[in-house]
């Protein structure tokens, strides 16, 4: 791991009028690290994720990102063009519902190739080869390259969405409940895949989930949120095995045992 954090978050708050979305969030994310944000629904996880990924403007606070050129830039002081460029090259965003992150009416190959074309790749053969390469990596058979995601199962769509995001070699990936809505065996396979990709590519990731098992498998570190505040953070195994806050203890003890 390098000795400079990839993301520095300070005093991040988002208010919806008088209501709190998330408040006073501060943390640093290091290269190669996977951070899980857990909490019940309504605890501000997704608000926080949207603020971090600049999909939403926070009310106060700053997020600094370590650019490829070595300097830090405050995300909210970048121009929209720069931000959007960052989002489609150096970042990925995996939505809970694949239909939000995919173009459902164009083929799988074009879905994966879109980012390449967006950054100026103009060679059809190369784009197609890269796309089929990535389909293979996410365990989608390459003869499905010309099928539309509409013809794919939920698990395949989610894997396609991951391939589409990773094709430009991003350094940071945001995931919003990546396994939500999938059945357990498909979940397990997806988690395995994501864990492998994160390790191979040295990605940093911020994963929002309400599923503690997902956090346990994927993340190195986790933050527990309640009512918009981060109430506990630490190494994943420490938080899950030795929860300190009463709410975290409740959360951990609520996992269904089979």
């Amino acid at each position, binding site marked *: 791991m390098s000795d400079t954090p990839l993301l520095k978050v300070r005093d991040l708050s988002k208010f919806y009028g008088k209501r709190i979305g998330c408040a006073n969030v501060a943390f640093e994310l290091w290269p190669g690290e996977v951070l899980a944000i857990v909490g019940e629904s309504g605890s501000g996880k997704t608000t926080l994720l949207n603020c971090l990924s600049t999909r939403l403007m926070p009310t106060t606070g700053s997020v600094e990102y370590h650019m490829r050129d070595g300097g830090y830039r405050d995300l909210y002081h970048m121009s*929209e*063009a720069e931000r*959007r460029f960052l989002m489609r090259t150096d970042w990925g965003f995996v939505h809970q519902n694949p239909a939000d992150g995919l*173009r459902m*009416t*164009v*083929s799988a*190959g*074009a879905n994966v*190739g*879109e*980012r390449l*074309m*967006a*950054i100026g790749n*103009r*060679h*059809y*053969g190369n*784009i*197609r080869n890269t796309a089929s390469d990535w389909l293979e990596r996410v365990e989608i058979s390459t003869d499905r*390259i*010309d099928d539309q995601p509409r013809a794919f199962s939920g698990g395949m769509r989610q894997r396609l969405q991951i391939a589409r995001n990773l094709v430009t070699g991003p350094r940071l990936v945001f995931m919003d409940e990546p396994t939500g809505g999938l059945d357990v065996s498909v979940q397990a396979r997806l988690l395995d895949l994501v864990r492998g990709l994160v390790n191979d590519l040295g990605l940093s990731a911020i994963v929002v989930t309400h599923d503690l098992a997902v956090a346990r498998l994927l993340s190195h570190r986790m933050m527990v949120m309640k009512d918009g505040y981060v109430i506990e953070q630490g190494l994943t195994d420490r938080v899950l095995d030795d929860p300190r806050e009463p709410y975290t203890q409740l959360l951990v003890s609520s996992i269904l045992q089979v």
Partner: protein
Amino acid sequence: MTQEVSQYSGLASYNFAYLDEQTKRMIRRAILKAIAIPGYQVPFASREMPMPYGWGTGGVQVTASIIGQEDVLKVIDQGADDTTNAVSIRAFFQKVANVAVTTHTRDATIIQTRHRIPEEKLQENQVLVYQVPIPEPLRFLEPRETETRKMHALEEYGLMHVKLYEDIAKNGRIATTYAYPVKVAGRYVMDPSPTPKFDNPKMHMSEALQLFGAGREKRIYAVPPFTEVVSLDFEDHPFEIQTFDKPCALCGAEQVYLDEVILDDKGGRMFVCSDTDHCEERREHGHVGHLGVAKEAAE
């Protein structure tokens, strides 16, 4: 301005070229802005015209705003001067502007067109006015107007190539044959209206001013004279125009855009120039295709 129409017909009077002067001013402003930013779609307050949307209300408004009493108007529809749309728009301007009309490309100062650019090279003193149904080239891939505007503003045109990619993936080649997207002056991606891609190279460095009016969508855009217009493509699938196996059946012209005409119900067909003026002129000069009749013999 002109009271001639009412004097002749006893009807309530129209202003010259139908639109009132304030409307023309508004449209001219939009046109000037469009010329200043080649390929950029300028919103304008499109008016109701005495014809349905889809029949060229955008083109008619642009023509009405730029036409003067000295102008000579030519109107073509799919290249032809004698199809319904062309005939009725020509008659419209004869009635409301009392201007000279022609079918000869060379004689016209304003040419309003639907779906074609004349075969004959246009000159500096000519203006080509296109009727545009859907001005937004990104529309079929991105339905949100807010998003497409942002994409234009930030020059994010990757999506346009996604469309071409899909074409090649499905058909093995770029199968888009009309409304083929172009990049204007190295900046804006533009829909050249549903002209066949055969005509795209004619837009490049054209001497004539090209104006595009979309009435229903309320947009005007323009390509000023001598502006670079490049058709989008892939390095390994370069842009190509349509080619035809045979010359025009009536005038024998090659390297022109041909229409297929069905002759009977036994599979008989012929391919003839889509530009009727071009075809007629060639025949007057004695060119005869394999189904054509020499001019003197016909008379």
